[in-house]
């Protein structure tokens, strides 16, 4: 297993990999994990907005998916959609469990890994400010709107795929993205300078 995400583009290749997994080949499981781990982690983090929770949800997602791999039907949905559906469902369980506001101790005590030294301090500050603003904007959205916007812009899913993952009609997915746009427009404007200006500054 490596940090570099391998490139397996074809659906057929993924399906072959799944068939190999079902024969009990451990390397196939590792390859499947390598292919989707980054995306699933980013999805979980963008939805639960906490590092520890995101790790837990990601772990649950892969364990469930690997144990139930025989249930995956390639004729009904792509493996990515199936995996994202499991992840979103687990994230929803996390929202339900944690109705009270949480404190991310990592952020509280600034325990995050430092940025590479090559990055200029101003650039790092601007990047951090932009990321915080985005995180706060996402946090202000309701879970369905957050899910829709994260799946669309964070993972490039089409409205149809978003609807499949969220278990709703395509029109509902479209409405949620439109509503999320309206909310985000106001929230990001409330932060004073536009995010884009901050991004353009480095």
């Amino acid at each position, binding site marked *: 297993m490596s940090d570099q995400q391998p490139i397996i583009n074809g659906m057929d290749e993924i399906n072959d990999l799944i068939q190999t997994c079902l024969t009990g080949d451990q390397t196939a499981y590792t390859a499947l*994990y390598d292919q989707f781990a980054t995306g699933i982690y*980013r999805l979980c983090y963008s939805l639960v907005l906490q590092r520890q929770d995101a790790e837990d949800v990601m772990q649950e997602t892969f364990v469930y998916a690997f144990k139930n791999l025989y249930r995956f039907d390639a004729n009904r949905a792509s493996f990515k959609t199936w995996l994202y559906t499991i992840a979103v469902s687990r994230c929803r369980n996390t929202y339900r469990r944690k109705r009270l506001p949480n404190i991310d101790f990592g952020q509280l005590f600034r325990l995050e890994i430092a940025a590479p030294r090559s990055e200029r301090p101003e650039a790092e500050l601007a990047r951090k400010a932009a990321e915080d603003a985005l995180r706060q904007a996402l946090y202000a959205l309701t879970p369905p709107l957050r899910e829709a916007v994260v799946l*669309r812009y964070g993972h490039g899913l089409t*409205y149809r795929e978003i609807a499949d993952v969220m278990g709703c009609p395509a029109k509902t997915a*479209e409405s949620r993205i*439109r509503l999320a*746009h309206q909310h985000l427009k106001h929230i990001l404007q409330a932060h004073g300078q536009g995010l884009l200006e901050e*991004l353009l500054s480095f």
Partner: protein
Amino acid sequence: MIKLLHILYCKWHITAYVNGELSPIQRRRMARYIENYPECYVEYRRQRDLSRELAERLPILGAPQGGQLQRLWRLIEGDVAKPATIILSASQMVVYSLSLTALLWMVVLMTTLHNSGVTTLVITPPTPDNAVLGVETRDPNHTTPAIPPTFVAVATSGGFEISTAVSTAQLTDRDTYQNPYPTPKLGE
């Protein structure tokens, strides 16, 4: 009025237009409105900028840090290798708990009733002797109370005679009834 409707249509579909999710006919219509109405153009610019921002920033948010995915993979690998365990949902746990409690209550209730003698209320069918002598005969020390004398018909060899001073207790010791009309034997 028509202009207002066009602007409303534009505002309603502008996000889908920016995301390339409209049909070709809708796209052409939207392009026409954006070109003709400044309000639509302003909204289009705003939505396009927001979409670009989100599309640039969201994929970076929550990027895994070095070694994080390997650490998680080791945990996942360990969990997958474990034998399957039954994990009950909250609702299932409530149902099972209630069922178990009800069962325990039933057992406790039945034991209590059995020990308190309430079960003797269940009447058992009497034996033929008991049916004649009644429940009192179950007690060996029990004596049958004397029944006041009454007029009874006593069967004798000559027929019936009326006695006034016999009781049913005495009746049992007397001779058995002799039938004055014996059954004729076959061939007589």
